[in-house]
């Protein structure tokens, strides 16, 4: 008699119950009970599928690798089965039968790998036999064959942290400075007593900045102030804008082929790039050219040792080996769900250097420049072949920031006080702006989002690019004139650093009065023309005398 009589239960309740039973006989008894009872189709299916599942599991367990019929097994089954087989002779038997039978390459690989694992661990000398890829896969067409650096780069020397400093509009972008600051910090620690005390011979390693562009020597000097020991720069008017080919060739040449006395090593130990649009392109191309890997979009960097047990890296199955001076490169995965730390580690017969990363802008603090820092400027000298410039930039555009209200002596701003006659209000505001030598014209958000109808001649002035406040521009002129603006906190944060604030409002209780230097109670349609006249005549005192001095 089974513990559960299915005829006592609803279908919905039975699912978990049935799936909890592992005894086929009990299930068969339940099936019989159900058949004698209501004989519900879904219940029968439920129990039958459970029985089927258990039987299948039994068969799987019972399979003896010594004489199992491989044709019955999927590749996954084979993989699972061989994992438990330690006898190489049995495995060879399996291999033979598979080859005679279905001859599936996936299954063969699984069995071969297991043989290798079993024999390797008993093999004695512990070394993984190295076969160059050309010999191992002679039939393959080798796309890497023309890359002279792919092989033979084992046991070379690597030094220094190279930082690509991206420029835009003739300036180092912030992330370049962030990377220099971080590189300085990392290498100071690396060279210090707490770190490695310098390279393998105890010589300190350096932060090398790379600046490429047109007329960039000043930026190269700036890179020193931000932490570089040495800056390699290349100037050429054709390099004014980023281009894949010449930038990649130049970077690679600088750090691998450039013949200067201080660069007495094969390639950099570390390279870091900004994870900007151009930096992402360049980092991938350069690391490819240098025949290494890249961890892209990293959010942190640190240098530490790492225990590695992967035989592909250690060359010795089963053992863990400590690798030191390893750049740890954490990066967000799966939309920031998780973080993975990427390591780029040499193999026994192939080096993976430089250890390269691109870093998300803003991941590190922007350092303060030290103009007294000393470093060496190195001009990179190389004839740039024309074929590097086959791609021509025919046009470029910089997204404009719109109207810049900052940097003026005076800002005249209008608010919803113009509502009774918006067009006239704008006209009066613009007239006051014109009366000053250097004034800008701003608006509160309330005006921009209003449904006011403006006359065609002033309509162009009413746009978001003139908005002052939290979601607009922040200004701090010598004089800020706010007409018809109540002074909500969202507006206040955009202007309260101004030296002198003059508010015009017909509501004496308006919030703006609390943070104005002068408050003129009155209708802006009357006050603005008088203010304009006073400014034009140079006699502001007369108007100011009427204002209450809060």
């Amino acid at each position, binding site marked *: 008699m089974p513990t559960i009589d299915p005829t006592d239960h609803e*279908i*919905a309740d*039975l*699912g*978990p119950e049935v*799936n909890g039973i592992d005894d086929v006989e009990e299930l068969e008894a339940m099936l019989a009970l159900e058949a004698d009872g209501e004989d519900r189709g*879904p219940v029968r*299916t*439920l129990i039958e*599928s459970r029985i089927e599942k258990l039987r299948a599991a039994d068969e799987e367990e019972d399979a003896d690798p010594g004489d199992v019929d491989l044709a019955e097994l999927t590749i996954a089954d084979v993989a699972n089965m061989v994992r438990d087989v330690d006898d190489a002779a049995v495995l060879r038997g399996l291999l033979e039968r598979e080859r005679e039978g279905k001859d599936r390459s996936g299954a063969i690989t699984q069995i071969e790998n297991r043989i290798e694992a079993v024999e390797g661990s008993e093999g004695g000398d512990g070394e993984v036999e190295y076969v160059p890829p050309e010999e191992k896969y002679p039939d393959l067409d080798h796309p890497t064959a023309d890359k002279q650096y792919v092989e033979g780069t084992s046991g070379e020397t690597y030094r220094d942290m190279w930082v690509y400093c991206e420029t835009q509009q003739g300036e180092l972008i912030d992330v370049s400075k962030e990377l220099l600051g971080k590189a300085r910090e990392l290498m100071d620690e690396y060279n210090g007593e707490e770190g490695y005390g310098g390279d393998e011979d105890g010589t300190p390693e350096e932060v090398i900045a790379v600046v490429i562009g047109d007329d960039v020597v000043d930026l190269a000097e700036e890179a020193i102030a931000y932490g570089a020991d040495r800056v390699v720069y290349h100037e050429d008017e054709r390099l004014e804008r980023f281009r894949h080919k010449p930038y990649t060739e130049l970077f690679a040449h600088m750090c691998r082929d450039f013949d200067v006395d201080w660069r007495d090593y094969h390639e950099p130990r570390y390279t870091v790039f900004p994870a900007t649009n151009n930096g992402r392109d360049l980092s991938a191309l350069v690391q490819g050219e240098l025949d290494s890997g890249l961890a892209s979009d990293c959010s942190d960097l640190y240098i530490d040792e790492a225990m590695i047990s992967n035989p592909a890296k250690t060359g010795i199955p089963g053992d863990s080996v400590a690798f030191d001076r390893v750049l740890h490169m954490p990066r967000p995965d799966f*939309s*920031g*769900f998780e973080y993975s730390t990427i390591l780029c580690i040499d193999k026994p017969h192939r080096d993976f250097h430089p250890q390269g990363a691109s870093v998300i802008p803003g991941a590190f603090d922007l350092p303060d420049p030290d103009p007294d820092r000393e470093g060496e400027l190195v001009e990179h000298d190389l004839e740039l072949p024309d074929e590097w410039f086959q791609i021509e930039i025919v046009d470029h555009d910089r997204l404009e920031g719109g109207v810049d209200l900052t940097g003026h002596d005076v800002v005249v701003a209008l*608010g*919803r006080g113009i*509502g*009774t*006659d918006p067009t006239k209000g704008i006209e009066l505001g613009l007239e006051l702006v014109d009366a000053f030598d250097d004034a800008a014209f701003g608006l509160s*958000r*309330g005006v921009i*989002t*209003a*449904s*006011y*109808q403006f006359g065609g001649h002033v309509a162009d002035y009413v746009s978001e690019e003139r908005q002052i406040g*939290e*979601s607009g521009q922040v200004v701090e002129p010598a004089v800020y004139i706010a007409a018809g603006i*109540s002074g*909500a*906190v*969202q507006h206040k944060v955009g202007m309260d650093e101004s030296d002198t604030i003059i508010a015009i409002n017909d509501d004496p209780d308006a*919030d703006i009065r609390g943070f104005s230097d002068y408050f003129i109670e009155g209708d802006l349609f009357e006050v603005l023309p008088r203010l304009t006249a006073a400014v034009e005549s140079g006699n502001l005192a007369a108007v100011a005398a009427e204002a209450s001095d809060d």
Partner: protein
Amino acid sequence: MTDDHEHYEAVVVGAGPGGAAAAAALARQGVETLVLERGVDAGSKNVSGGLIYAEESAPYTIDSLFPDFREAASERPVDDYYIHNVSGRDVKTFDLGRIHRHDTDWCDAVLRRKMDSWLAERVHELTRETGGGLLTEVRVNGLLRENGEIVGVTCDELDPITADLIVAADGVNSELARDAGLMDWDEPDDWFQGVKAVVEMEPDAIADRFGIDDDEGAAHLFSGDLFEGVRGGGFLYTNEDSLSVGTVFHLDSLAAERAEPHELLDALLTHPLLDQWLQGEYEEREYAAKLVPDSKKVAHPSPHRGRLLLVGDAAGQMQAQGPIIKGMNHAVTAGGLAAEAYADAKTRGDPSAAGELYEAKLNEEGVMDQLRPARYRATRSVSESDLLGTIGDAVIRSPIGAAGLKAFDGAIERAFNSPFLLGMVPDTRFSYVTLPTRIGEVLGEPVTGDNDVEPPDLADRIGDLTYDVGEPHIELVDNSFEASGTAVTACPVSAVGFGGGCYREETVRTNGSEERLVSLDTQPCVECGTCAIVADTEWEHPAGGKGVEYEQG
């Protein structure tokens, strides 16, 4: 092709109590579950009056799904429950402890930012085990369909995601429920609007002024003539070191009376009755607003379509029966039942049957009967008619009515405490305003004390809220005053003559003619959804992480 999209077994949209309950229950069944939340943090978009119930008869409670909930995420247990019937300065207080404790295992005051963000951490831990997890700052903006069938969701920030089960727990303004055609935004009388102030108060002061210990709490309700005749009432709940004080009104009444919600809240806050608690001190931590579905009218009897199941506010599962307001507990139950329904359907080999099973479970567990009492449906047509309201008004106002009230003083209090009678309470001015006012007038005693607190004005309330302003998420389709003017008053962050709000009335002169228009600035929007109902708009939520961020909730 479906193969082009990332696939999860279940996607839960929204990390409030309904979504959290569904996700936790799914994860415990081993279902690979992804939870998407549009706020910067779970709870940053969520507001409630502030009481969560655990009902004895409920199949799921928040603490059964999330052990330690009460210690970690709630404020104070609420045992005392009073209603104050107010007429001018006269107040008659009834003890509603019996109805409050009816079928109640426990009831705690909560603040949603703290509560929901705590829940979200648990949910992330649980769902990660299944290969899913919880992502914030992702706004789901619609349903993904294939050959007319719902197969997944689309988002502002991520590529479309397919799922075998989609739980829409995206709140009262559920975009998924609307996309599926299950809910609409048409009738103001389907909704309540609540506004709330979280007011700072030291635990010692709370203990002193409410006469309670540190591990005790109180709830007070207010009705009568405080609110300019608008149908609704007020509430006050004690938190650990603050009070939640708010008002809730029928949106149709609020709209018809052109009432300003923030002023009605201030009317409560400044009533002499509150002086005993505020004692001249008033420091407002946060002003918030929320739309509340009236489950009696809109709780969807069949809240599913294909793979989509609606849970909580998204399905209108918010029970407001006279003075008893229960929403979060029903969302939790619904979330648990939705998960259970999916697991059952899967066991039967037909996951697509989840919706039908969910509906059946809502009925079997008595949830639907609580949300849409048959007694209310049976009596509504009679009791909500104007004629009966008028007769009721006339009788209760007469000397005979007053005598009746006096004679039945104790009986009225008992009647308020009857779950059966409450199920019939009609939604008329009579029961919200006239009767309580008359009770206060005839039976009440005048309160002494003067309440001279000054709540902040609307500009400061908006100024104190945190926003990350993104692209405008509401489009004013018809900006004429006739079509959308009601929003100027009904919107909780707008007011007549206030230029810093969302909706502003403007008079525009063109070529000699004058036009009354309404303009919209979504910067101060608190995303309550009021204007979607009372004005002519295209209403969406802001993109993930954008818009208002509540710190209390």
